[in-house]
């Protein structure tokens, strides 16, 4: 039964991944990253049950802490950009080109 969970996590991870690559709004992109992290957590928790040790759950817990810190920083950066440009689109931020 772990298989199903892992497959579900794979699907969620892929969706998050595609979202990061296709969406333009930085906040939505970031949400998709969070979706990926959540997918990882699901896999970790499922594997924890599979193997009968709690390392996976601990890892998932750490991920949540890390995600919290990451969100604060990420949103702070996005807000800064938004305040200067009035736009949260990834593309509008394109002074840097080849």
């Amino acid at each position, binding site marked *: 039964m*772990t298989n199903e969970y*892992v497959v579900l*996590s794979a699907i969620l*991870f892929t969706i*998050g*991944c595609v979202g*990061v690559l296709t969406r333009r709004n*930085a906040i939505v*992109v*970031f949400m998709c*990253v969070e979706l*990926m*992290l959540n*997918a*990882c957590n699901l*896999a*970790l928790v*499922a*594997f924890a049950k*599979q*193997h009968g*040790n709690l*390392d*996976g759950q*601990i*890892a998932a817990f*750490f*991920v949540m802490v*890390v995600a919290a*810190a*990451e969100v604060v*920083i*990420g949103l702070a*950066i*996005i807000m*800064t*950009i938004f*305040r*200067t*440009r009035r736009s949260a689109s*990834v593309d509008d*931020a*394109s*002074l*840097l080109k*080849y």
Partner: protein
Amino acid sequence: MNEFIKPTIEYFELWPLLVVFGVACLGVVVEAFAPRSARYLAQVLLTAGGLVAALVGVVLIARDSEVYADGAARGVLAVGGTIAVDGPTLFIWGLVLVLALGGTLLFAERHLDGGVSAFAGQAAALPGTEAEREASTRGLDHTEVYPLLMFAVFGMMLFPAANDLLTMFVGLEVLSLPLYLLCGLARRRRLLSQEAALKYFLLGAFSSGFFLYGVALVYGYAGSMQFAAINEAVRNDTGNSALLLIGVGMLAVGLFFKVGAVPFQAWTPDVYQGAPTPVTAFMAAGTKVAAFGAMLRLFYVAFGADRWSWQPMMWIIAILTMLLGAVLAVTQTDMKRMLAYSSVAHTGFLLTGVLGVQQTSALADGELTALQAVLFYLATYGFAVLGAFAVVGLVRDSGGEATAMSRWSGLGKESPVVAGVFAFFLLAMAGIPLTSGFVGKLAVFSVALAAGAWPVVIVAVLASIIAAFFYIRVIKAMYFDEPVGDGPTVAYPSVLTATTIALGAAATLMLGILPGPLLDLAGLAGQFIR
């Protein structure tokens, strides 16, 4: 069942980590309570002192390190086996600390821009507003950058020392988050800088997602986060190699992002260009060292037994990285972007060393090991790139740093010393003999060739030729071209930047002429312990 066992913490071996972390926290306290006027000096002294103290610690630990197990390695596993303080770790710690010391000096430089540092006076003030101007005229300064630098150094030390996947992940994040912030704090060209921070952040978070999924899959495969247990599982081949393969691939993606390997190099030029130059210098050197240290440990310790399945992947990535980095660097017109692409090419060269791992029994007596070669290359590249970016910070025009390559024409006439030093760094990166870059290149190429990766070595040679072209082009512009307009001006730095540049140049020269001691040191570091 499981009773709580009080963990033993090896305070002596962890001293460098603890000192760096402690100083970072102390820096935050200083930021909160010290009056503004005292902060700059306090932070700089605190940071530099902390780094030196940690460095002393590294040396002491290295002197006392015990031979581990069968004698091929030395060091101890600390805190319940989550941190390995072994030879390679100590080497990388030392390197990161020295580079960070150089970075600190660059951070503290206030002579170049009329008495203020390269960081924004007030990051929260909108660019181009009255508030920004006011912050600027008052000579405000974000001294928070020093604690952030220390946190990043802490991450850079934890990342390669981690002996399980979870600690490694935490290390990765600790190293990344402060850098995301530092990238967005440039004083000049703030939009560019903020944009760099955003890109770096989004792509970094994306890549850590991949890393994490890899962690989950490998955990699913091995049932443990510990490298030793994973290695055991790989050796015994518990089946389900799909989990392992995909897991390794995902972990690799995460690491490749951090080191800027193709196809995950896209952030490098943008971030290198947009970030404040001191940050770029520190980041380019430090991140690469830390991430390659972690990559070596992960692939050699955890997946060493499964070499045959990841080496081909590494071959392809290395080849693509070298070629793309070199080719794109040729097309650049901005100095920082050019150096960024060149760093991509160097990532490829480093990967060439990484994939050169062989069984210990296959090595001749006294032959270079892949670990030794990569560690040495990291040292050579770290110093060269630190110095090169430090020089980039010196060449200015009215709008701040003049990073457009055309503005560098005729620099040889304006300031022969600066041009000469920069040319020297470029030659080192091109791998000309009598510079450190040459010995580094020779080392990584020879381990790759010894491991039978001759196609990679041939491509590496080709890429070196292409790379030589753009380095030489810059040297030609500096020495033989006429200046455009009124030409570039060189801002004369304080002793801080000068020290960093001198450090970089001296290391580059010494490692080029007498690489023996450092190579021996890298060899003495021995193998990883599990």
